[in-house]
């Protein structure tokens, strides 16, 4: 059970997959490749098409057009029960009329695998539930049900495991615990996981690669750190964490950076971190990478500086303070300051300037609907 060799996943490829429902298009010509053995997360708000994607891959819905390949084999027209793919359903979908053990053994019995009950018992051991195998699913807690659903899928050693918001029904503490457990199991069994979620923390915490979906398409895909550090669209910048965004025309350019002018303030971004180098563009910075100063600082070319403005709100959140700063003609900017014992002593109404390193700016390919703010 623990050997990767017997349990390795296959790579999944979606080519130009489109799904239309009467009245709307849930998925617009999606291309996606997930390498074998990866923990891949599809992240997006509800209605973005992520669950549709999952259902198409599982075979529960048919794509309007396009192809789905698993391990290089075209499975577009393969029935769900003939695909080597298993799903952990959002509601777990445990069979209420069977014991936990019979639930886990179900897939093995269908495929006429020898010794289904012994193998099911092994799978329950993996999720530490062997002592509850005689119970009915209704008699288990939410977290236990979740683990049974996982064991029921894993025991079949699928090439690809689909997880549809598997932690959505659990409370926050249990969710964080299960995240760690789920990741550990994935590493242990080494198969391909495709995880669908709307929880950005969950996606970034567990996945090797995160694809952010919006309105039926993938906006951006990459490692969690890369996505967070350099969001390429306004949607990603705002959905994944918080961002301050500034819009202006590119007015200055040198070898490495371009600058926009926002109400008389010059804001620069390295060319390598900007999607567009001409015309009207949006430049952003994460709130925790910005600082404020009570007196106008003298900073070199490596910094962006805007202000003066006024602190209009301070929120204490424990690990950090969140400052909302209103800068005339620019708008509201959010700055996070860690509570490490020397955070600036300020109060609402204080006049401040905001600065950040040019190398922390990122330039977007599109413009946000609203100008600034977090």
């Amino acid at each position: 059970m623990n050997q990767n060799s017997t349990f390795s996943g296959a790579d999944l490829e979606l080519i130009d997959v489109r799904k239309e429902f009467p009245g709307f298009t849930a998925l617009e010509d999606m291309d996606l490749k997930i390498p074998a053995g990866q923990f891949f997360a599809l992240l997006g708000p509800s209605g973005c098409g992520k669950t549709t994607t999952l259902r198409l891959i599982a075979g529960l819905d048919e794509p309007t057009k396009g192809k789905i390949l698993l391990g290089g084999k075209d499975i577009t027209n393969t029935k769900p029960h003939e695909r080597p793919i298993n799903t952990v359903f959002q509601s777990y979908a445990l069979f209420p009329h069977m014991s936990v053990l019979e639930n886990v053994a179900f897939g093995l019995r269908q495929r006429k695998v020898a010794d289904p009950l012994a193998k099911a018992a092994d799978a329950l051991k993996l999720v530490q539930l062997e002592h509850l195998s005689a119970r009915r699913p209704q008699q288990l807690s939410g977290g236990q049900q979740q683990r049974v659903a996982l064991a029921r899928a894993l025991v079949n050693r699928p090439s690809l495991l689909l997880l549809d918001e598997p932690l959505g029904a659990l409370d926050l503490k249990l969710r964080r615990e299960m995240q760690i457990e789920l990741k550990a199991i994935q590493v242990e069994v080494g198969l391909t996981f495709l995880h669908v979620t709307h929880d950005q923390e969950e996606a970034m915490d567990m996945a090797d690669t995160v694809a952010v979906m919006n309105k039926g398409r993938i906006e951006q895909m990459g490692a969690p750190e890369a996505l967070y550090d350099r969001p390429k669209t306004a949607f990603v910048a705002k959905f994944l964490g918080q961002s301050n965004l500034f819009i202006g025309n590119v007015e200055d350019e040198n070898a490495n950076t371009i600058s926009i002018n926002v109400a008389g303030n010059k804001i620069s971004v390295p060319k390598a971190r900007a999607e567009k180098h001409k015309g009207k563009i949006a430049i952003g910075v994460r709130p925790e990478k910005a600082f404020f100063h009570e007196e106008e600082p003298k900073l070199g070319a490596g910094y962006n500086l805007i202000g003066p403005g006024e602190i209009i709100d301070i929120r204490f959140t424990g690990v950090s303070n969140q400052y909302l700063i209103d800068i005339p003609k620019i708008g509201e900017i959010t700055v996070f300051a860690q509570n490490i014992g020397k955070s600036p002593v300020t109060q609402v109404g204080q006049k401040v300037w905001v600065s950040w390193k040019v190398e922390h700016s990122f330039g977007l390919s599109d413009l946000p609907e609203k100008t600034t703010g977090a």
Partner: protein
Amino acid sequence: MKAFDFKKLILPFYAVIAFVFLLLPIAYTVAFSFNDSTKSNAQWQGFTLNNWLQVCVRQGVCEAVGSSILIGVISTLIATVLGTMIAIALVRYKFKAREAVSLGLFLPMATPEVVMGSGLAAEFFNLGIGQGYLTIIIAHVMFCLSFVVVTVKARVQTLDPALEEAGRDLYANPRRVFMKITLPLLMPGIAAAALLSFALSFDDFIITYFNGGQTVTTFPIFIYAAATRGVPAEANVIGSAVFFLAIAIVLFVQIRSSLRNTRLAKLK
């Protein structure tokens, strides 16, 4: 304070009276199944167990019950299968004319029995079909069908489609998904529908009377025919036995599910 308490007792007191009213004819029927009557069972003659011990000896009651059971079982089988199929389609599939189908299923429940009975009889007359077991069974399936649909439909609605999807996901082909998941999960609803259907068929008088009551004697037909000259106590025996059986089944189901719920609540 006293007046308040008195007001609180009005409703329970009323409920007791209402239940006495509802149960009085049942008690009467049961009591008179022990009446030592010779000809008419209208006056109390004394207590005897003979009617119960020798229920089949006289009067042809048991033959009538036999006919009723035969008709009930066959009608229930057909109505349950047809009705379950419709119930699944109504909940699980989108199709045009859904409203018309709903209306078509509702109408038989909203039609007076005398209209359905005479209408079917008129049709059999028009088609030249002679009345007998066949016509009675056809009629019973017809009026049981809608009730089966309603009962099973309620169960299908509580069935999470994800369970069947999980079955498909776990390598079960459509036939096995139906046999291993859909059917077992619908079973309580189907069983309830079948019981209801049998009860309706067993107790039906009006429609049966129009469609074969002259040639086949079911239990209700027997009572109706006997009512002119006095219904024998054996009929009360059958009625009481059926009553206690039905009550026992219902109570058993209720207590079992109630026990299961408390056990579940404790475990969680």
